[in-house]
């Protein structure tokens, strides 16, 4: 029984940003240069090979792409300009679209027009929805920002954001399940006993919060930025999802809540500007190539951060009407960003990466216990 090859795979991946994989001549320099690559997860060369040969199934069941943090050392040393780092990035985008059962992810990644259209549609719906809710079901007065009679009262927003959170969480969970199915039941996968899942469970929060593997990269700047961005984002998310009332009470500044908000706002703006500047100047290997989805994500992030800040300033400056309008504009950025990015695009890697590290660890632990692979290929070739 042969492995079925899909000769169109490499063309398909072009849409996801892996444009130069065809140039690779399999010298293995990238795998040896990478500080993350180690047996049995030797990458990126192997993924490049899968791409060139059109081995779709092995590529889909690979964990390697998620173990790469794209420091760009492989691309810098690549003798062919095959951009292994960007290829891994492209493969991650493709994997995201493969894990996604709705097909929306593939649509968004393959066509920047659809992504832009989706953002605009969701933004307009959001704007119209909140405006009509504010006028009809909320405070009804655009000139009231906080306190009783507020145009968009925090408790109502909470109902909305918790609902949305649950929905997006559900979508993402389903995608994570599919990832588990692909990778842990792939052709070379080892069946992992449940006890191991439990024993190594702490790996998930550990890698989620510290991203400590990223620190193995020679260049530590991306890790720092990434961490700042993630913590700013999580802080802001917590503030909005739990402490919205405190955040919007005013006009006095509540330092116990607002100091966190200010810090994370600075973090979000600084890191997104840093990334946009880097991508424009192409100052590092990991900034040399930008997929349309990268620009959309960074644009939305910066837009949301800045409108959030303006809204806060206007509120403190005693301009409730302007603050309310900015608030709606801000939401018109937040909702499409979360709705599209979390389950279907960039943000989903917050879940996939720790999961991949967890799964890889489970595989190795299971193998250490002497469990043999049970996949189709493994049965054919018991030694491998």
């Amino acid at each position, binding site marked *: 029984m042969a492995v079925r090859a899909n000769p169109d795979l490499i063309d398909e991946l072009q849409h996801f940003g892996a444009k130069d994989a065809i140039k690779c001549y399999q*010298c*293995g320099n990238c*795998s*040896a240069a990478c500080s993350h690559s180690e047996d049995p997860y*030797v990458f990126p060369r192997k993924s490049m090979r899968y791409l060139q040969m059109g081995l779709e199934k092995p590529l889909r069941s690979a964990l390697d792409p998620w173990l790469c943090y794209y420091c760009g050392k492989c691309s810098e*040393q690549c*003798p062919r300009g095959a951009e292994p780092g960007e290829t891994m990035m492209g493969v991650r985008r493709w994997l995201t679209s493969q894990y996604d059962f709705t097909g929306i992810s593939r649509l968004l990644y393959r066509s920047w027009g659809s992504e832009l259209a989706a953002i605009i549609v969701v933004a307009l719906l959001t704007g119209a929805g909140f405006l009509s809710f504010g006028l009809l079901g909320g405070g009804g007065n655009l000139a009231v920002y906080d306190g009783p009679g507020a145009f968009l009262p925090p408790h109502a927003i909470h109902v909305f954001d918790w609902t949305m959170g649950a929905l997006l969480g559900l979508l993402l969970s389903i995608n994570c399940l599919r990832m588990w199915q692909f990778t842990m039941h792939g052709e070379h996968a080892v069946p992992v006993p449940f006890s191991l899942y439990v024993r190594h469970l702490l790996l998930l929060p550990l890698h989620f919060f510290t991203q400590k593997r990223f620190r193995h990269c020679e260049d530590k700047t991306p890790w720092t930025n990434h961490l700042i961005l993630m913590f700013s984002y999580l802080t802001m998310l917590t503030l909005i999802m739990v402490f919205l009332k405190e955040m919007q009470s005013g006009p006095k500044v509540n330092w116990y809540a607002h100091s966190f908000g200010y810090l994370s706002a600075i973090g979000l703006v600084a890191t997104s500007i840093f990334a946009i500047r880097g991508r424009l100047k192409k100052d590092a290997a990991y900034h040399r190539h930008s997929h349309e989805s990268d620009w959309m994500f960074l644009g939305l992030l910066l837009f949301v951060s800045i409108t959030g800040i303006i809204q806060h300033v206007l509120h403190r400056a005693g301009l409730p009407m302007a603050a309310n309008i900015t608030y709606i504009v801000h939401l018109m950025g937040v909702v499409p960003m979360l709705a599209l990015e979390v389950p279907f695009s960039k943000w989903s890697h917050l879940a996939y990466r720790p999961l991949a590290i967890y799964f890889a660890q489970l595989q190795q632990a299971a193998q250490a216990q002497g469990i043999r692979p049970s996949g189709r290929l493994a049965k054919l070739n018991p030694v491998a």
Partner: protein
Amino acid sequence: MPEPRNQNRESAVNEPVVAAAPRIGVFLVQADEEPRAGVDVTALAQYAAQLPGVAVARTIAATPIANIEKLAAEIRKAGLNAIVVAGEHPGFYKPAFAHAMALAGMDGSAVRLASFAERSGPMSNACAQAIVAYAVRGVPYAPEAKAASNRSFNAATMVIGGGIAGIQAALEIAESGNKVYLVERSGTIGGRMAMFDKTFPTLDCAACILTPKMVAVGQNPNIELLVLSEVQEVSGSFGQFKVKVLKHATRVDATACVACGDCARFCPVTTASEFDMGIASRKGIFIPFPQAVPNTYMIDPEYCTWVLSEGKKCGACAKKCSKGAVHLDAKDEFVDLEVGNIIVATGYDTLDAHRVERYGYGTYPNVLTSLEFERLTNASGPTGGKITMKVKKLNKKTKAEEWVFEPDGPKPKAVAIVHCVGSRDRNYNAYCSRVCCMYSLKFAHLVREKLPEAKCYEYYIDMRAFGKGYEEFHERIREEGVSLVRGRTASVVDRDGQLYIHGEDTIAEHLITVPVDMVILSVGLQPSHGAGELARQLGIARDDDGWFRELNYNAEPNSTEREGIYVAGVCQGPKDIPDTVAQASAAAAHALRSIVRHKADVSARQTTPENAGVPARS
């Protein structure tokens, strides 16, 4: 009886070797069907009859000559001593005429052909007449022959570069009796090949092949060797180039120096030897290597105390030289050459291994380049050909610790050879340097041969064994127990004094880290430094990689866009020794073609009806 003897001798001297009066028979083949328009054979016979020296001119039928005796009788009767057969394919009749000449008691080889078929393009009576006239005069017919011009042509040739390509080209031309100026930048000819220990795939001793040729260059009276010389200016055109050469002073009289080495013994200056790629040292007055041609000492003005102090200090060499050969105050001079052809054979440099930082060349003492290893393993190298590791030693003069090769130094237990260093890599040179795979295999063989206990690893991307016997050589080295790893080395690191080489074995799909004692970097080839400047002076083009551009990749790999300038060897593109030698001979053939044709033109111009004799055929 002295007188008759004298008379005998005189008559012997005066006896003409070739019959003085030519009596030529011109036979024109009357074709059944006129293959080319415009050739009237009958008119041609009339034309031929009035050419100087022609006794008989007639047409013959285009049928095999049945009666050779009859032809011989005709030759005897007319007293013919040379024959010209003219026609579309006259070679067909040559054996018959040669036979007839022999039967007539004449020289059977005095049958010349005038072939119309060799002349491509439209044919005319005038053209046919020219072809016949040339044959009658015994001059090869040149299709481009123009009315005799008075343009002078210099038969001398300049060869730039004294490596194996330059040596081969110079010898080919000089041995044909023509003048060659061999201009070499360094102090000796021999070039890169002189540094090599062995050649691949035959594992012949490189010096045993090269040094006889070098000696032949030194001894050939037709070759004027200009070492320490660089081309400064080239003007003129094909046939009459004017070249200005800067000849740096060796400061040693080549005619007086006997290379005894006394000067070097007393020279207080020590520096790295260029010939040994810096792994051995030499004095301020030195000879590049013992078999150098010319075998003369020379002074390096960059290090010489006398030169640096402007004559105030030292001068030991001049004082100690028993032949008085050292002239410290000798000055550089310009030499003006006039040549008809120029052959460029400037060879290559290897990539500066410092540029590939991750291999640690220059940081780790036992990371060597390929040419350094050639010198190390060469019997004339610093260890006498023993493969040892560098040891730390105190330099008594500078009081600094240095890593040096010693004949009794420790032997490496594992050696790694890294292919494609700076080759096939768009960050350095995108092209394949073509020779590295094979010389790396050669190194592996030398390591295994000299250190049978040592492990040897070759890290390659693709094994390019394209030449005759190369694949067999590859198989042989594989069988000798060399570990061939398919994968490019990513890095060489030093952990606690032990070198580790790290790469992916792309066949096993595993990352491997191997402890080794010595790493040989198979650096790629790139155009010799100064190639760009020389191209500007010569007015020839270079390709994107810096190699001199040939006129046509397939059909004219030796010629350049400028007539009279040819390229040979690696300066045109990476190649191995056999290809270099072949190309050098081909370049010499190009130069000789123009020289021979020019000489023929001259003799044709000088041939008048009065002096037209039958030139002796050689």
